[in-house]
Each structure stands twice: as C-alpha cells, then as structure tokens.
C-alpha cells in the first residue's frame, strides 16, 4: 500500500511517500494509523496527536473509521490551510 504524507506530518515521518506491507489485521484507517505508530519513533511522533490528522483514501477525504477496502493510496496530513 502506498502512503503519502504532507506538511508537518511529512516532516515528522521524514519521507514524502512510502510503500508498506500491511498486516491482515489492519482493516480501517484507524488500524493503519495504529500500525504505522509501531514502525519507528518518527511515525510515532507524526501520529502522536491523532485528532489533528486528516486522511484521504485514493484522493477522497474520509474519516478514520473508514475501511481501507481496495484503496491503493492513503494520504495523511494536517487540517488544510489553503485559500
């Protein structure tokens, strides 16, 4: 699964993008966040304030209880500040 990070989430994780193997027990976005936090300190720091993280599945906004389904790309980022 391809994972992308933006803004300070990207800075904390330390990479823009990565491909990871997700265990079969990971069904939802929340499960995925839980898994990512176990990878290393950077990921743990990035997801420390879970409420501040927004998620897109295949470029659509979703809530963290969303099923990953067959999504190819998951993106994590802070609340948006465009405009």
């Amino acid at each position, binding site marked *: 699964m391809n994972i992308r990070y*933006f*803004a300070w989430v990207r800075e904390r994780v330390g990479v823009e993008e990565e491909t990871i193997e997700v265990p079969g027990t990971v069904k939802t976005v929340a499960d995925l966040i839980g898994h990512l936090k176990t990878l290393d300190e950077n990921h743990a720091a990035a997801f420390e304030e879970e409420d501040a993280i927004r998620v*897109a599945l295949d*470029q659509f906004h979703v809530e963290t209880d969303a099923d990953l389904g067959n999504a190819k790309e998951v993106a994590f980022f*802070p609340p*948006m*500040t*465009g*405009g």
Partner: protein
Amino acid sequence: MSVTPTVRVQAKDFDPQAEADLLTAGRRNVGALVNFTGLCRDESGTLEALELEHYPGMAEAELIRIAGEAVGRWPLTGLTLIHRFGKIPPGEQIVLVIAASSHRRAAFEAADFLMDYLKTRAPFWKKEHLVSGSKGSWVEAKSEDDADADRWSIG
C-alpha cells in the same frame, strides 16, 4: 445547459480580468460577476513568503468536486477556480474564485461558499518563511474556517 467549471492548480500567477472576461465573452445573460482574489499578506512586515504545499492530483480533484457542488446549488452561468502552489511573496495572488450568474445573490453566495469549502477541504498547506530568517512554522487551521464552512451544511 450545465456549466463546466474551469479549475486550475498552478505555480504561476493568474490574471483575474482575463479569467473574468472568459466568463462574459459572447454572453448576454450574465448579470453578476463576483470575483474573490486572495493575496499573500506580509503580517506586519514579518513574513518573507508563504510556501504552499499541495497534494498533486487530489488538489485538482477536490477543487473540481467543490466547484461541482456550487454549480449544483446555485444557478451559475460560469465558474472559475484557480489555486497556486509554491513560494509566494507578500502582495502576490494566491487564489481566485469567480462566480458568474444572472443574479447577484447566486454569484455572491457561490463565491462565498467556494472560499469557505476550499479553505477546509482543498489539500493545500501554508508554511511561513520569516523575514528574520528563522524557519517559521506551518499555518494552523482556524476554527472560524470550520465554522464558516458549516454555514453551508444542509440540515
């Protein structure tokens, strides 16, 4: 006849008048144009530039979705949405929304709605570069922006 919004995500600057002209050229049913231009402020001289990061692909897709919502909600004759990314110094333009309609209320409401939605849903993030040379920080989302966007929720 359905309206196809013009949506662009680009690094380069844009020309609001040229965009407005495209929405009125050869038409005689446009009674109202509301044009919102968002510019980079210097924050009392402390800001050297804003760096706008975006999610390529999703930024365009989300702007198209937001524009489509506006077209479905108001009787518009045309709609243009342009958002820049990259480093933008104070005084330069960041975002453009133009809503054209036969009637002013529709044009005003659509432009207002688009800016509110764009602020909370379009995947762009601003980082400040300070005149002092220090790195600055990511601009925090404002709760007012969420409140503004909520004004448009349907029951």
